[in-house]
């Protein structure tokens, strides 16, 4: 990948930014796409799993359907055109180039919002929510619902720089985001995130930089600490839980017991994962094995079913990882973090919680109220899983609008 970047005062002015912010344009040479297809077609496969279900990981039939589509019909240039239609920038923060999309609303009282993706996500996850957030009157909302949207790529992800030394933890990323918003001239803003993005917005909430009015999470760090520890240890649900709490406890227990393998590997041995850098199919399988509920959605999509995202959506995201060579650099974030994912972190500012039923842990309202003393808004949705912005964009946008209304 080569990236055309330029420092242009005009460009900065146009986007309401300060100098030090460079316009960014992606430019993926055709040769890289040809090479990707060549590698996909030359994949050497293992045999089929020895069970008739998904208990041994990504099934051969599913990944072969994905590879067959990826190596032939799939067209990266379509999403590239969508990306190029948006204003991209790069700015150096704390020694690292940070890439971000910055779309200002035409509504003058728009609320600035920084949206953070997770692993295995990227800015591509957020493409569907940009228009409804920035241009609400065209998407079922009113002018008072408008946001100015900032969507960064995390360090080591997408078009951001890759750290060459350790230390880029979620805490440091959270501080960098506050710097970014300040640099963009935003003195009052809110933050949204899921997956690592949720850890980062929780962390921003704890750091409470001046200007941060509130956060919106779709993976709330709100499992009571003792329950989280019990689930992690594989214990039975403790007595006294209501039905909803019990279901949530069992959901996350299943993940801890059967689904944590990839995260432990990345947390301890990110550098051992040469296969996600050298093999497109190795990367794709590693990415779609995120959690069993999302995996099943993806498997249904490649079986011809309809879900909140399409085959192209899934491959756009995976192809971005491939083209930016960020399999290993993105995995390092797990190594950098030593805190809890799902336990409360002590956020004292206002919080908006979206709870999706097939999230790793669908958080009951009761837990959200305990974890976030200033819970501004809570909504439990009837459908949806881990990648809400990608898969349930309308629900997520509705929650951002409704949840932040009282903070404007």
């Amino acid at each position, binding site marked *: 990948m080569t990236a055309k970047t330029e420092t242009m005062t005009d460009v900065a002015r146009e986007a309401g930014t300060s100098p030090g912010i460079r316009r960014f344009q992606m430019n993926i040479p055709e040769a890289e796409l040809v090479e990707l297809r060549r590698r996909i077609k030359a994949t050497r496969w293992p045999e089929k799993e020895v069970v008739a279900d998904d208990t041994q990981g990504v099934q051969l039939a599913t990944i072969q359907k994905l590879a067959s589509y990826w190596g032939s019909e799939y067209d990266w240039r379509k999403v590239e055109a969508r990306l190029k239609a948006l204003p991209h920038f790069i700015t150096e923060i704390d020694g690292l180039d940070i890439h971000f999309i910055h779309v200002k609303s035409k509504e003058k009282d728009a609320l600035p919002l920084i949206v953070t993706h997770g692993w295995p996500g990227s800015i591509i996850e957020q493409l569907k929510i940009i228009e409804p957030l920035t241009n609400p009157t065209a998407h079922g909302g009113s002018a008072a619902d408008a946001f100015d949207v900032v969507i960064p790529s995390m360090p080591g992800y997408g078009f951001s720089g890759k750290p060459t030394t350790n230390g880029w933890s979620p805490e440091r990323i959270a501080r960098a985001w506050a710097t970014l918003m300040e640099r963009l001239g935003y003195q009052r803003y809110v933050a949204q995130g899921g997956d690592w993005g949720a850890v980062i917005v929780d962390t921003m909430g704890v750091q409470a930089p001046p200007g941060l009015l509130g956060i919106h999470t779709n993976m709330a760090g709100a499992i009571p600490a003792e329950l989280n520890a019990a689930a992690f240890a594989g214990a039975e649900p403790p007595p006294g839980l209501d039905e909803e709490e019990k279901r949530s406890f069992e959901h996350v227990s299943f993940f801890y017991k059967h689904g944590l*393998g990839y995260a432990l590997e990345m947390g301890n041995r990110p550098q051992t994962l040469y296969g996600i850098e050298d093999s497109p199919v190795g990367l794709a399988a590693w990415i779609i094995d995120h959690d069993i509920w999302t995996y099943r959605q993806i498997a249904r999509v490649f079986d011809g079913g309809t879900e909140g995202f399409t085959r192209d959506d899934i491959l756009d995201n995976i192809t971005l990882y491939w083209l930016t060579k960020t399999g290993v650099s993105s995995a390092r974030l797990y190594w950098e973090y030593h805190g809890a994912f799902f336990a409360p972190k002590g956020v004292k500012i206002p919080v908006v919680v979206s709870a999706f039923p097939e999230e790793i842990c669908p958080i009951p309202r009761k837990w959200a109220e305990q974890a976030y003393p200033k819970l501004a808004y809570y909504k439990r949705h009837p459908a949806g899983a881990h990648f809400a912005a990608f898969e349930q964009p309308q629900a997520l946008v509705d929650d951002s609008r409704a949840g932040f209304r009282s903070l404007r």
Partner: protein
Amino acid sequence: MTAKTETLRDAARKTGGGSDIRPFQVSFPEADLTDLRRRIKATRWPEQETVADFSQGVQLALTRKVAQYWATDYDWRKVEAKLNSYPNFLTEIDGLDIHFMHIRSKHENALPLIVTHGWPGSPIEQLKIIDPLTNPTAHGGSASDAFHVVIPSMAGYGFSGKPTTPGWDPARMARAWVELMKRLGYNRFAAQGGDWGGFVTNLMAQQAPPELIGIHVNFSGAAPPDVAKALQSGGPPPAGLSAEEQRAYDQMAFLYQHVPTQIMMAAHPQTLYGLADSPVALAAWMIDHDVASYGHIVKLFVDGEPYGDLTRDDILDNITLSWLTNTGVSSARLYVEYKGAFFNDYKISVPAAVSVFPEEVYQAPRSWTERSYRNLIHFNELPKGGHFAAWEQPQLFVNELRVGFKSLR
């Protein structure tokens, strides 16, 4: 891979086996080797790790050295010839083709011995011990030290078949090995193993078939129940541990926190498509076994420092075998098949010899070993050697087998 197999009653008779034992020769087409070198050279590399040590996994400088040697000077045909210099066979047991090497001693009172490798191992690990075990008089021993040696590839490993249904766990392999030994006409034999081979051997001893007269393990997995339970729950160690036991406990606790690669294989082996598609991915995954062996492999490839009897070729012979047989994923499945504990009180009554190597992932104390093996006939703590003892310290290893089994002959 193509494998020349033929059903030959003569060949079977020659090795004392039944008529359903087929001779086998290792013979990979040149195209497979060319494709391997092409893939290595076309590796798309990540950047260097962001730390100056091994704490993020297999370091880029090492994998690059491995890849460079692998794609240029390394010659698979040498070990292929070595493998073919011994009699290799296939036989179907319990619905699966099992590959094994079978080397009979010229000494008629030799003790039959089945030796089982582990992960990420293969029969290549055992090549150095074959001659000293079968022909002791040429290797510092006496005729009464002789063994008839049987070295199988585990199910899903090397040249054995790959199971297509679940159930090939270490206990089933142990039963298959007994059937194999009986099929070869051995009604009185001993068994040896390390790593998964240690589990297979321990489970065989628990099954206690009448033909099994004793075992030797260089990875015992011995631990009292309260220790095993504390480890699994991540709790504090039981009270009253001696200094030696506390040290072992700490090593095991470290291991429980540092085996993500094994946990991944136990959870979702099928997700590891990179192991089938990328030689460098497979090499890194196999090299990332334990801290001590990793450290030696770095010194061997990067600094040119010796690692016992292990050479760069040895390391790559084993990895190349896994590549050529495409057994990265099928071998990983053993972790999902095994439902037992990794450290256990095995309550074994069959006579057992145990060797403790100082760089093994833990040093089983004699107290725990005596408890796990009620009839401990030999216990020795060696001055050097690690997890791949037969491969790295073949002389010490062979001596352990000679001394360990002496009382059973």
